[in-house]
């Protein structure tokens, strides 16, 4: 515990560290000789040499890029030497020039917690607010039984918690009286590319102000090994640099790092390198995404359904429509692999008819229509006519029984943006652990979840926020950031919440993936009961909004 290896290469870093070491008297600082070697390696980059880093992040997706920004903006972490490796061309992100009448098909909902984090690391202010849609309501219903649950921003703002409502006399938190700023949104919808753009801009800004952040784009990690063919034998200690992982890039370059971060997605090469097992399964489902144009005047919801997210559970999987601005919406339709492929090929007009039917028609009708997409992608029956006929039958019944008429209707889909229909395989996966000595996993590399609750990315951002904080604390206390003991606080903070989310979402997906009578009946009663119990609903929403660990009075700050 007494000897420590320093990899800091700037004078500023040393000063910070010395200052820290003085603050924590129990730590003795040993200026290691190897530092000079690091400096020289850095000064003359040579593809055959191994270049040392404090943190190497594999994967420049949202999780990896956000981590780079968070580290770069930290007091202590900002002095570290960081590398980010991404297989794709990141210049696409920085050169992103969106048109007002086009939206990318990959859109995510960001929870208030994620947005707060993005604000803190300076990314949110880089974004174009006209391309961010506030989501103020959610309508979720069971396609088989029609049972429905609605969430709106007013619910989440309920000041008292569930327990306070049970014990009605419990004092309200003092801040509960303050503020009348009603209705902070449940979530914000924006394109993944948009967030990537903001992240990239911040990364470059950090670089420009001198943070040692090396970005290797269009570069793939080819291999990771634990041992270097090191010519200079180091003193054997627990922090022996020769034990640091070495990352070989496909351009022949080698990086050696104190801490290796796997932000490399669901098939994480870093996870395989660290021999971390992961458990999970492929849902035999694909999520078909697309950008839609909708006619808000056809919605019966408040404010013509603007800012409302709609999700209907069908026996083949949930279909969701997320609000964007200016009459656009983003579709995620989880369904069987075959239907997803067929939907992609269907002529645009029939596709829109089918999406509309998916929010209204009976599951049997929908199945019939989906079965009638020919191998050439052409409909084999007249979709429009079939749908109209069934709608007229439904209409007749609902009038007579006065049922379901009060359920808000989603806006009608009028067009689908060209070339935005794309299927993604859906999986659930959780790593048995998130940390090993010198290795840590974040985002989809650590856990992958079914998109039905729109939580994957938010979980990844929560990981990143936590990891950056843990690394900062290790540096401040003079610990080795790659040491497994330094990383444990991260895994103990993130593992259980992520697992809970995965389990919940997985159960939900299974629960709704059937039209078996008794199950439908029980789940409908459950959904209806929850819908009628404000306090429980509030708790669910807070969980979904990433606010479960925030006292509810503070939730809206």
């Amino acid at each position, binding site marked *: 515990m007494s000897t420590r290896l320093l990899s800091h290469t700037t004078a500023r870093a040393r000063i910070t560290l010395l200052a820290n070491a003085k603050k924590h008297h129990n730590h003795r600082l040993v200026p290691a000789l190897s530092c000079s070697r690091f400096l020289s390696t850095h000064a003359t980059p040579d593809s055959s040499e191994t270049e040392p880093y404090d943190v190497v992040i594999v994967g420049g997706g949202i999780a990896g890029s956000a981590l780079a920004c968070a580290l770069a903006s930290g007091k202590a972490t900002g002095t570290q030497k960081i590398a980010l490796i991404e297989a794709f061309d990141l210049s696409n992100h920085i050169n992103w020039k969106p048109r007002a009448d086009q939206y990318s098909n990959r859109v995510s909902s960001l929870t208030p917690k994620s947005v707060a984090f993005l604000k803190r690391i300076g990314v949110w202010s880089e974004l174009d607010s006209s391309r961010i849609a506030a989501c103020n309501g959610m309508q979720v219903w069971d396609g088989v*039984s029609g*049972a429905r649950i609605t969430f709106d921003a007013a619910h989440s703002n309920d000041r008292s918690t*569930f327990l306070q409502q049970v014990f009605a006399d419990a004092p309200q938190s003092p801040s509960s009286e303050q503020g009348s700023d009603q209705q902070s949104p449940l979530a914000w919808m924006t394109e993944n590319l948009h967030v990537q753009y903001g992240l990239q801009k911040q990364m470059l800004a950090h670089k420009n102000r001198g943070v040692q952040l090396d970005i290797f784009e269009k570069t793939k990690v080819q291999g990771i090994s634990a041992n270097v063919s090191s010519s200079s034998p180091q003193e054997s200690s627990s922090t022996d640099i020769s034990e640091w992982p070495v990352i070989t890039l496909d351009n022949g370059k080698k990086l050696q790092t104190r801490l290796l971060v796997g932000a490399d997605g669901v098939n994480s090469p870093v996870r395989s390198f660290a021999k971390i097992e992961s458990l999970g399964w492929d849902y035999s489902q694909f999520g078909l995404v697309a950008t839609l144009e909708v006619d808000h005047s056809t919605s019966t919801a408040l404010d013509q359904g603007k800012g409302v997210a709609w999700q209907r559970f069908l026996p083949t999987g949930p279909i969701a429509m997320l609000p964007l601005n200016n009459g656009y919406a983003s579709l995620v339709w989880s369904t069987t692999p075959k239907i997803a492929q067929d939907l992609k090929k269907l002529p645009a007009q029939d596709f829109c008819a089918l999406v509309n039917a998916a929010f209204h028609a009976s599951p049997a009708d929908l199945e*019939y229509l989906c079965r009638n997409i020919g191998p050439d992608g052409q409909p084999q*029956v007249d979709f429009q006519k079939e749908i109209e006929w069934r709608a007229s039958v439904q209409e007749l019944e609902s009038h*007579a029984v006065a049922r379901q008429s009060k359920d808000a209707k989603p806006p009608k889909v009028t067009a689908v943006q060209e070339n935005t229909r794309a299927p993604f395989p859906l999986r659930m996966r959780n790593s048995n652990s998130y940390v090993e000595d010198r290795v840590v996993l974040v985002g989809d590399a650590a856990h992958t979840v079914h998109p039905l609750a729109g939580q994957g990315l938010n979980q990844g951002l929560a990981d990143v926020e936590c990891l950056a904080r843990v690394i900062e604390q290790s540096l401040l206390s003079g610990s080795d950031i790659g040491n497994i003991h330094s990383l444990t606080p991260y895994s103990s903070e993130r593992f259980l919440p992520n697992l809970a989310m995965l389990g919940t979402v997985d159960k939900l997906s299974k629960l709704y993936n059937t039209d078996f009578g008794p199950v439908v009946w029980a789940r409908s*009663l459950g959904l*209806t*009961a929850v819908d*009628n119990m404000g306090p429980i609903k509030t708790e669910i929403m807070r969980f979904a909004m990433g606010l479960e660990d925030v006292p509810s009075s503070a939730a809206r700050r």
Partner: protein
Amino acid sequence: MSFRIIPSRNINALRQLHPNRNRLAPCATLFTATLLTAKSLLEAPTSKLYPGHVPISPLQRGILAVGSAFTALANPLRGDMVAALGETTGGMFLERIRDQMLLDPEGRRILRERPVITSETMQLDKLRELPDGTFGREYVRFLDDQQVSPDTREPVHFVDSEELAYVMQRYRETHDFYHTLTGLPVTVDGEIALKWFEMVQTGLPMTMLSSFFGPLRLSHEERKRLFDIYVPWALENGSNSKLLMNVRWEEWFEKPVEQVQRELGVQPCPQV
């Protein structure tokens, strides 16, 4: 009133009662939910959905189901009670049959056009002129032998959906075709065998109940024949054949019975 209606109606009812329900303590909410469930048990649909429709509440439905089950058991000739039993217990299962019909082009056509089977629409006289052995000729022969007509069926009263009421009606109207198709006699055990066949095909609880309770009223001989011959035949053929609710019988009259059996995947029942 089928299961599917209960939840959404509760939501709306609760909304009207407690627009400000977020403030309610959870126990109070639970209590109200229970009350409302009770309330919805007593609520009947607001208006008549089709001629002959008798709107009833779930509670009445339960009483009617139990009552008609006992009456039907005691006296199987009470056709109205057997029918009431089927209607009051069949909501969910009728929906299932309707959905099976919606998945089939022929079934959809039937639901869209809603053909009815009466002595008028069947033009029985014309059927009598068809050659022996055709499906139509054998169908009238069956009617004539039994001295029944397509018009003697009990109309539908208690199904709370106009479309499901039609499905129920169609189910009843096509019953006689099943006899022609399978060759099962109109005897107590023959009818029970047909119920088994339908149960395997559709899962209708009325047929389920009578296929379980029906045997109580059989003689030793009849029971032996039922379980040695009919039931094994029903189990095999019920699951292998095309769903008979999706058959537009009216269009098969000219075909020989054997061909109809082959095309629908039904083997004639062994004759005793």
